[in-house]
């Protein structure tokens, strides 16, 4: 131990880089790019201006269009093949009936089948009816009451790609050594969007420890109303519990939002702590499609961490001594 992993060598390169110096260099590059574009394509700029679009606010424009499309079910991200799905209760009852008939089917298998049937191949924002459908499926199969829209709040997307994040510093002076056993992921040099979890090590409660362990990252920075509804939204999202379901294997985990990101250009929409990612897809899991809903838990009864919904009552005859 002690040596740096190849994936962490960038820490050495980044060490000593002055933020202000880098910022100035990049800003200059940005200004030059903007000037060159305006000079070469004044017609394009004029057209966009007429439509009320600033090239710098293109992502907000995109988010607005996608959001409206999700509401009306007219998204163009993938061919809008809206499958006619049977009511979720029907599927669940059918699965239960099969189980009682002797063909014991694991709830996780049922969930995977439903997700395969319901979700488009490539992640995109779900329509409200798709979300409502999944809410019922999750509640009935996973046993967690989760909602795409909670108290009027909704993320720009609830179906997207999750990427692996590093540990977050929980208090001043926190180091990777305190994050056993997931040391390989490293610890982020900067702080999460809500800063330290505790002002000092002795103020770090068991609950806060769990919050960092099972944390999620969502793109609050791209919410259309993020800047105008402060500080309400910042408080609302802080440590908000979410249910994350790996749509490929059905693994589910309850996590707390503790950071904002990833950048839109990464192609990812969510992030997960090393623990979250390992539970969702195993130790090598770095990126994959998930559905992420808010947990409806006003009494704070749902614990953070893995949701083990796969336990079925096996008949005694099924248990054999090896």
């Amino acid at each position, binding site marked *: 131990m002690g040596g740096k992993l190849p994936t962490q060598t960038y820490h050495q390169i980044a060490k000593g880089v002055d933020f202000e110096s*880098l910022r100035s260099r990049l800003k200059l590059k940005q200004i030059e790019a903007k000037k060159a574009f305006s000079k070469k394509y004044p017609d394009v700029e004029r057209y966009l201006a007429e439509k009320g679009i600033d*090239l710098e606010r293109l992502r907000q424009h995109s988010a607005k*269009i996608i959001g409206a499309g999700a509401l009306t079910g007219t998204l163009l991200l993938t061919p809008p093949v809206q499958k006619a799905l049977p009511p979720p209760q029907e599927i669940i009852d059918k699965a239960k009936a099969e189980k009682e008939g002797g063909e014991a089917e694991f709830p996780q298998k049922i969930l995977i089948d439903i997700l395969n049937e319901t979700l488009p191949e490539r992640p995109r924002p779900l329509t409200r009816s798709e979300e409502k459908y999944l809410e019922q499926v999750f509640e009935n199969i996973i046993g967690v009451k989760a909602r795409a829209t909670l108290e009027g709040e909704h993320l720009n997307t609830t179906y997207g790609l999750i990427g692996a994040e590093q540990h977050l510093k929980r208090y001043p002076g926190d180091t990777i050594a305190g994050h056993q056993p997931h040391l390989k992921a490293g610890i982020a040099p900067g702080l999460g969007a809500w800063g330290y979890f505790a002002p000092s090590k002795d103020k770090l409660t068991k609950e806060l420890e769990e919050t960092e362990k099972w944390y999620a990252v969502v793109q609050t920075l791209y919410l259309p109303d993020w800047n105008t509804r402060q500080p309400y939204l910042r408080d609302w999202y802080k440590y908000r519990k979410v249910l994350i379901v790996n749509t490929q294997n059905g693994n589910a985990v309850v996590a707390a939002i503790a950071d904002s990101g990833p950048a839109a250009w990464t192609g990812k929409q969510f992030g997960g702590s090393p623990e979250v990612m390992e539970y969702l897809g195993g130790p090598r899991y770095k990126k994959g499609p998930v559905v992420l809903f808010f947990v409806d838990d006003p009494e704070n009864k749902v614990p953070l961490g893995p949701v083990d919904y796969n336990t079925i009552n096996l008949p005694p005859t099924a248990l054999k001594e090896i």
Partner: protein
Amino acid sequence: MSKLFFDNLIVFEEVENKIDSIAKTEEERNELWGIVDSLIRHRALGLIFEKLPKTYHPEFLNMFHQAPHDETLIDYLKEKIGENIEELLRQELGNLAYELLEEFASAKK
């Protein structure tokens, strides 16, 4: 979701890691993310308008304005440009990633 039709051609993992390593606060990180995003947009759209015959500019702009996330825009561009614009964009954005990494190296104190 905030998506532009060429997002899937961006592979900036190293740039992403560097920003994470340098930014100490959420504000610093968001600012660097924003600058990189702006550079990507200008480079990608610059290349598209350079390659796309001028007669198609208004039509493309109209389609882009209506659905900036629609990945079938690439098919439209392929047809009108007659070249593999997907590959050209990949190269252009790859060059940008390289330039950005050089900036990171040069800014080192």
